[in-house]
């Protein structure tokens, strides 16, 4: 059995009171399985639903009872069928008994794995726990729960309970709810069960962990408060960003008949000498160079190893300081957690005493950490107390990395109080702002919405959704962002409409206008005019427009070369990266412009400008490896001058040593260096003859 293989049974309530949230249940469960298919394809998942009219499970056959619990799928390796089954959950008509369902799930796990796979067996119960549970034949319900929890522990099973209670279905029987909550609590008390209460469809999507990471310590050892006083700690990552999956590059080179083709593309790097681009330099002849100002200093890896900073593995206390001394915005990275060595009672007590003392005094600890031997750097960070409110979870510390002196840029900004009075809000405006900050409340008592711990990543949700859609139909378009996920990226329309008066007042109090001093072309932050009304945006058209307005690049895109500053326009066009056509257009336009300028000159008054343009063109052609374009043009231009009696321009060019682009400057050129130089020299006598 693979080391990290997980056995999971999803136990889902599909009873009538669950119907409103079943779409979200379908989404979150199928995403869980999708990720398993991609990242841990050996995991095995079973599916149990309860609250159905029908009954289908082994226990009912063996011992009777356990009605309205259906095993939709035995524990099997994850596959696409399971995703599909999860996306079409049956809608049940009976109020199911979650305890029965849990027992059925447990039974499946025990029958499948027995005593093996400890710690890798998981039940996942998703219910609103609003239906009454049956009384057992003997003893109380609590006894029954205790027995079940005892069994779970014995078999090393874990359980995640997600209790969904959206506000509108709170009118259910309070007594039943209380009893059920009490029973679920008993589970957490007696077994490795974690209960999460969820009150919105959005949080439901975030409540079930769909990512399966086996936690690994990054440090195990002493937390040295001094050379004499040490505490044994383990350090884990507390947060770590789940990245967008890295997609592979596709190659269609393999013949369609090749069933074993991977279609992958390998990226190959070759290092070539600058002097001879055909010569590849072998790895052992390469050496690393580090920049130091304008110099590049070569250092071999042996030298690097010798001179490198080599601190000893350790975690040392530097001291304590007031929490207010360390601003929240100095936290540099993802967060670690320091826990006392599991099972080491004294270490747990020591951490607990320290954490509680720090919390009481509103202090933090500053520590210096080297996680591994041989690590080439140190981190200085801050320990903040994480005092546990659960009886069976010990106290711990959060660890955040702090910046070094080199990492800080001390920019100075004007004090708000020093800004002119036109920028200072008056009393009425301040009041309106106060109202807005107070009323646009995302955390009314006890009901925080968009809690990071319960908020799914909308981009990843959308990606996996799209993946499933595309697996059925390759050319399917990207589906729009789910309504539930929109609650994360946009303000909640309900909250907005509730506070319409406050928002309208805010609009009335403040005025925004475009800066009249700004040139029209450089405006990017186009602003919709305040209309007074605040219909929350569902209109996709308006949204798309808004995006267009924002996503202008920082500069106005130059599309043609004007008269005012042709050189600048030319360079702007040359540096446009949205299409390669701009380069050829820029070159062509510039050529025409130069002809115009030369032709329109009166006694050479525009020669300088023409020269500037020519120099820019020459440079552009070298950069873009278009030497022929320039060389042909220059020949043509000189000839043109001769024909049009503009010899003075030829001289002017000669005196400024404008030459053809040689092979040395641009490898594509056919002109040797000498020829390039001679070009103008050759012209000179001709020019004289012309006079």
């Amino acid at each position, binding site marked *: 059995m693979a080391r990290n293989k997980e056995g999971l049974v999803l136990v889902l309530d599909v009873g009538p009171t669950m119907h409103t949230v079943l779409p979200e249940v379908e989404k979150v469960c199928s995403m869980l399985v999708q990720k398993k298919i991609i990242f841990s394809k050996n995991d095995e998942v079973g599916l149990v639903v309860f609250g159905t009219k029908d009954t289908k499970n082994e226990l009912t056959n063996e011992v009777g009872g356990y009605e309205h619990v259906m095993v939709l799928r035995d524990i099997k390796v994850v596959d696409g069928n399971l995703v599909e089954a999860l996306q079409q959950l049956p809608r049940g008509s009976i109020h199911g008994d979650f305890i029965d369902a849990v027992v059925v799930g447990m039974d499946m796990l025990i029958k499948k794995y027995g005593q093996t796979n400890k710690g890798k067996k998981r039940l996942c119960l998703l219910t609103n726990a609003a239906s009454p549970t049956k009384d057992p034949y003997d003893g109380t319900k609590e006894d029954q729960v205790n027995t079940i929890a005892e069994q779970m522990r014995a078999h090393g099973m874990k359980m995640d309970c997600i209790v969904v209670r959206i506000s509108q279905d709170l009118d259910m029987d309070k007594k039943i709810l209380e009893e059920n909550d009490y029973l679920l609590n008993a589970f957490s008390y007696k077994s490795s069960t974690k209960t999460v209460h969820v009150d919105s469809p959005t949080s439901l999507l975030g409540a079930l962990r769909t990512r399966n990471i086996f936690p690994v310590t990054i440090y195990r050892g002493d937390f040295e408060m001094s050379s004499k006083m040490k505490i044994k700690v383990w350090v*884990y990552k507390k947060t770590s960003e789940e990245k967008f999956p890295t997609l592979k590059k596709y190659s269609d080179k393999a013949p369609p008949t090749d069933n074993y083709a991977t279609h992958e593309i*390998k990226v190959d790097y070759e290092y070539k000498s600058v002097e001879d681009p055909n010569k590849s330099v072998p790895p052992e002849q390469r050496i690393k160079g580090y920049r130091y100002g304008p*110099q*590049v200093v070569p250092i*071999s890896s042996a030298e690097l190893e010798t001179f490198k900073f080599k601190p000893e593995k350790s975690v040392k206390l530097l001291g304590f300081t007031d929490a207010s001394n360390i601003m*929240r915005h100095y936290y540099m990275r993802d967060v670690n957690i320091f826990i006392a060595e599991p099972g080491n009672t004294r270490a747990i007590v020591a951490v607990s005493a320290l954490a509680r003392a720090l919390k009481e005094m509103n202090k933090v600890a500053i520590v210096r950490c080297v996680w591994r031997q041989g690590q080439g750097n*140190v981190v200085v960070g801050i320990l903040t107390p994480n005092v546990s409110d659960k009886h069976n979870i010990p106290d711990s510390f959060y660890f955040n990395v702090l910046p070094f002196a080199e990492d800080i840029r001390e920019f100075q900004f004007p004090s708000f109080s020093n800004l002119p009075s036109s920028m200072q*809000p008056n009393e009425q405006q301040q009041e309106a702002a106060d109202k807005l900050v107070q009323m646009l409340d995302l955390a009314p008592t006890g009901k925080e919405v968009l809690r990071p711990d319960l908020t799914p990543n909308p981009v990843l949700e959308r990606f996996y959704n799209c993946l499933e859609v595309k697996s059925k139909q390759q050319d399917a378009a990207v589906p729009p962002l789910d309504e539930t996920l929109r609650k994360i990226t946009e303000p909640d329309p309900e909250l907005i409409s509730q506070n319409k008066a406050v928002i309208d007042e805010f609009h009335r109090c403040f005025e925004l206008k475009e800066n009249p001093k700004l*040139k029209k072309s450089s405006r990017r932050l186009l602003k919709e005019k305040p209309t007074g009304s605040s219909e929350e945006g569902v209109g996709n058209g308006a949204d798309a427009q808004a995006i267009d307005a924002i996503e202008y690049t920082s500069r106005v895109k130059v599309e043609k070369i004007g008269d005012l500053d042709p050189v600048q326009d030319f360079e702007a066009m040359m540096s446009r990266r949205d299409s390669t056509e701009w380069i050829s257009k820029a070159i062509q336009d510039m050529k025409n412009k130069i002809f115009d300028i030369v032709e329109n000159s009166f006694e050479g008054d525009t020669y300088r400008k023409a020269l500037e343009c020519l120099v820019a063109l020459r440079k552009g052609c070298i950069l873009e490896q278009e030497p022929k374009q320039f060389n042909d043009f220059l020949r043509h231009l000189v000839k043109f001058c001769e024909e049009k009696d503009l010899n003075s321009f030829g001289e002017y060019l000669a005196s400024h040593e404008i030459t053809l682009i040689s092979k040395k400057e641009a490898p594509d050129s056919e002109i040797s260096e000498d020829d390039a130089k001679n070009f103008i020299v050759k012209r000179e006598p001709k020019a004289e003859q012309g006079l």
Partner: protein
Amino acid sequence: MNILPRTTTLNSDLSIFVPAVQMSRKKHNCCGSDEYIAATCTSSDHRRSEHRYFDMNVAALAVLRRRSNEERKEKKNVLEEVDLLRNKQCPVMDIDPDDVFRDDEDPENELYQERDSTKEMLVYLVDASPKMFSTSCPSEDQKDVSHFHIAVSCIAQSLRTQIINRSYDDVAICFFNTREKKNLQDSNNVYVFNVPEREELDRPTARLIKEFDSIEESFSKEIGSKYGILPGSRDNSLYNALWVAQALLRKGSAKTADKRILLFTNEDDPFGNIKGMTKMDMTRTTLQRAKDAQDLGISIELLPLSRPDDEFNMSLFYADLLGLEGTNLTQFKALVGERFEDMKDQLRKRMFRKRKIRRIKFIITNAMSIEVNAYALVRPTNPGTITWLDSVTNLPLKTDRSFICADTGALVQETPKLFQTYKNDSIMFSTDELSEIKRVSTGPLRLLGFKPLSCLKDYHNLKPSTFVFPSDEEVVGSTCIFIALHGSMLRLKRFAVAFYGSSTHPQLVALVAQEEIMSTSGQVEPPGMHMIYLPYSDDVRPVEELHTDTNAMAPRATDDQIKSATALVRRVDLKSFSVCQFANPALQRHYAVLQALALDEDEMPDVRDETLPDEEGMARPGVVKALEEFKLSVYGENYDEESDSIASGKTSDASKKRKAIADKATEESAKVDWSDLADKGELKELTVPKLKYYLTANGLSVSGKKEDLINRILTHLGK
């Protein structure tokens, strides 16, 4: 070691300098020569700016270096041409007279420019008059230091920072009121400090830093201090200094570079000992000189050094020079410091110009969006990017990347499509589809609502925060709304939750209002909001629950134990701790080594690790006693950490296994006479597992091919 071929021809630019008093009369509304030079460097500067914050791709670097060399050559030609055209000048940009931010603290907001300057050209203009040496202020270690020392040590420090962080910027160091003169204009009392292989205005080099470090020792001998404005002489050292500085800044245009003169002086009345017509005349020409420089887009910033008992009087002369009036003048603070460290702090902060990372539209409501600028105040500094060099020639290598089909080995030319394997199928995505997937938001920064600060937990963090400051540049009224919300959030102790819809990395963010914090050394925390990137549910790991003991209560500290911990915390208090007080020892070491290698020095410098705990402080009797009491309280008597620790009793399976392997290796390794085998060259007769016994037993790496293993053993044996 200096592998960049260099040209010194650019200096010729300076010899053709025309005094600006004449120039300013000849302003024509045409394309000025300054702009002309600018145009030739735009493209390279753009590239530079792109690379500043991102990892420089090796290939790009190679190309860049090649191009910049070409451009140097190119520029040489251009400059000679410009020579002829120098008589036409025009103001490079319009300075808005009504501007509100017109003080030296925030010059960036001052101009409604379309571009963000990327490159900076900076001339340090240091007064070296006797007064700079005779005036001093006390430092932390009770020694008095002169104003000259303060200025010089600040410059030295900023050069070090610059070579690490912004090595593309150009600097020049210029002293005035000197005995000797060294400048291309041959002006009296002005000395431009430089080192070989470097232009006067150029990027800082290792040698510059090194030699500048010892400037104070050699100063009196080689440069000398002498006040340059004396009665009876027509010499005007300040005028000359500004002239030289402006000439140095001729290189490049104000359109592509920020040009600044930083003037360090403690003389508030430079023409104080001159009288009558001469004084008026000198004052007038000097002010004109400064104005001409400013008209050319050069900003002059003053860093006045003064003493608490003898304040620097701006109104005597410098207010006119800088163009300060009314409230701006009162706001302009002289660097008054009781202590050397305070002054150094203030200088450091003023010497850097802030750069914004981007401008963001902050959507407050559907009908109202304000404009804010984002700044990166905290970002990790890394040892820089690696350039691969050919170890034979020390020339940079060009990287060729090619895509090769894994199935057929054929070269793939076109940009390939991307795919994800799913259900045994390859699901294809185009880049357009991927960016569409990432486009989940309708605005760059969209307000969702507010929460009390207690909802922002310590573990809600993923990466460094970004600072947000309002701007009225495009949308007038933004600042007012921002200040109002900022005030409300501070008062109500709430933070804003918003969605930051960047195209590559959309994320939920917290905007935390920060109040301005001032200290004796100036602004410590600027007012504004910090954008903190929040994790999603799958980014947070429930580690706490990992080791829950389901049956038992987790041990908790008793009140007595907490009390002894409290006593300890009180004892080991870092009162004046500030987040940025430590230099990164790894980075310092890295750059010290680079500098030593760049200068061909034999000895490797020793860098002090400031992050080590204060052993002395920890050994104070009070601290030791508190520690012992805490230990006794939580551990009890006779506690032996090692034996009591479960680590030795109940080690995990993995570490048991590791230990078993190590034991076996030691045992097996002892059976072989390695030295003998090595001498006979018979090591290769052994099997790889046997070789690995030796390596494991001696704590060496076991990776690589058999050959590598043998080599490693031989090295270890010293053969």
